[in-house]
């Protein structure tokens, strides 16, 4: 079978790992994968899907850059009789245009992080937040999820929040500024970063300022990339919500099965995202 897969891009650690896994799994399963990387651009992704249709692939998997703007092209896919599946992000509008969404849940990730922080800080914590790229879906969703939880706790609030563009470098710069602005994070008890790269940057910045992340500050973020595993082991960070990157093995079977017997599937097949925490510090 020939499957077209339109990926968002290469940013951070998680995406490339995800792309790589999809390509490797495809080889294993003997699938002819047409891989298209949209460089984070919506328009490139639309081009890709159109091209897949023109190529008459058997199925299309999309990891949408953005949730809107799909109806038109999905219509075309439907006309061409090509089933469409979604990986991670959801799309707005008519759900009948795609077969199923197989993904984790950004919002849930935010919630998990929030919940962990609430529990670790006994519901009393001043938080600084490192947001992802402004306007990007994960940033928006994780923020919403996180806030949904901490809003339950009157003593928990975000006192500073800036965008670190999902990058180590960005996270470090922002944290440096926060450290100055809050006079060495006085009164701050937790740091929530929308991804591990930023958190790792933040950790560097804090160490360079002579602070002890993971000991004096609760550090929670999302992705659970290898570098973060080390940080957790070293006790520099406290918790990271795993966003599985090796999910080819979840996705392809669903697609291939569907191609065999066009059986209706649940619209959303959730890939569990679980939280990994180092021993929570005594406080």
């Amino acid at each position, binding site marked *: 079978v020939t499957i077209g897969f339109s990926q968002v891009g290469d940013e951070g650690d998680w995406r490339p790992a995800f792309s790589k896994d999809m390509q490797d799994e495809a080889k294993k399963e003997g699938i002819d994968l047409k891989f298209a990387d949209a460089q984070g651009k919506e328009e490139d992704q639309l081009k890709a899907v159109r091209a897949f249709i023109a190529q008459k692939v058997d199925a299309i998997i999309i990891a949408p850059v953005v949730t809107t703007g799909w109806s038109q092209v999905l219509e075309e896919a439907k006309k061409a009789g090509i089933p469409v599946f979604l990986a991670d992000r959801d799309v707005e509008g008519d759900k009948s245009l795609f077969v199923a969404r197989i993904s984790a849940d950004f919002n849930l990730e935010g919630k998990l992080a929030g919940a962990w922080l609430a529990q670790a800080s006994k519901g009393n914590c001043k938080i600084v937040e490192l947001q992802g790229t402004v306007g990007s879906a994960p940033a928006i969703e994780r923020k919403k999820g996180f806030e949904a939880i901490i809003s339950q706790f009157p003593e928990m609030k975000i006192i500073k929040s800036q*965008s670190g563009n999902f990058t180590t470098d*960005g996270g470090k710069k922002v944290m440096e500024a926060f450290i100055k602005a809050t006079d060495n994070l006085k009164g701050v008890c937790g740091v929530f970063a929308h991804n591990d790269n930023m958190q790792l940057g933040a950790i560097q910045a804090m160490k360079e300022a002579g602070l002890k992340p993971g000991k004096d500050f609760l550090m929670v973020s999302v992705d659970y990339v290898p570098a973060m595993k080390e940080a957790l082991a070293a006790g520099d960070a406290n918790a990271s919500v795993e966003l599985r990157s090796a999910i080819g093995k979840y996705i392809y079977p669903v697609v291939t099965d569907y191609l065999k017997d066009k059986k209706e599937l649940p619209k959303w097949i959730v890939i569990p995202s679980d939280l990994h925490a180092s021993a929570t510090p005594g406080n």
Partner: protein
Amino acid sequence: MKHSSDIRPHAPAPSRLRALMAHRAVWPVLALALILAVDGMISPGFFQIRIVEGRLFGNLVDILYRAAPTALVALGMAVVIGTKGIDLSVGSIVAIVGAVITWRIHAGDPHWLVLVIALGSALLCGLWNGCLVAVLDIQPIIATLILMTSGRGIGLMINLLYGGTNPSFTSPLLQGLSVGHVGLIPTRLVLFVAIFAALWLLVRRTAFGLMLESVGSSPAAANIVGINARLIIYAAYLISAFCSGWAGVVLAADTHTSDPVSIGLNIELDAILAVVIGGGSLAGGRVYLGMTILGALVIQALTTSILTSGLPPEYNLVVKAVVVICVLLLQSANLRRALTHALYHALARTKR
């Protein structure tokens, strides 16, 4: 047909010259002062400088510290712009250098060698750009756009050479160059001053600067005079590449990871802005190194103050845009003249 606006003071040459110099510097300085003043108001402790972990620590230090890479790139950019060119590929060069460093360290080369290789690879990029512009004479924006688009890809490829996505490294030497400090002073500042001094000597104490400016002013005429315009342009792109390369070393060692997609993102825009705020003209013909640094400081001061201000991130760009516009309007002598001009005509009309 009387225009008070067109009359300018008659002053003997030297003092007028000095006035001119002053004139060029005064607006960026004013802008910088204003920005800092605002910071001082919104966050009280803004100016305090302490000694933490044996080095100077505080917002003002941060501004210098963070401005260093941008300023470096901007210096190279100023030289290229002096030749009527422009170099969009600086960000990609930073990415490539970062990737090369990480790669070679993983390959176990001695770290001084890694540094050499990294700068070497940057110079290669410079050779490429120079070749496109000087030899194939492709228009600079497009010529450097080519490396801009592919450079980060090359970085990613290098990462993939040995598996890891965004691999990290540890290197006392390189990290020392970036986040280390000699005495109380951050090393990167010391090195920056060294590079600036070298570049300044090259541009102002040899005839290179003059030839550069003549090429930027009129390539045809430069050729007739017997200047090898090609060579000069080549040199300009090499210098730019070297500066970006060094910035790459600093930035990569800063987070000691190779993240080609995002490292030094949009640094070319900040660099160009710095040059222009420093009074450089994209039409070429002049190189102001010192002023360029001033420009870089203005930009970094702005960025730092946005970060410390606690403003929600969705406002960053608007604030940046507004401030930049204001600075430029401040600088524009024409605006002032045009205003007086308009005023004059308004009055004239009312008289009739």
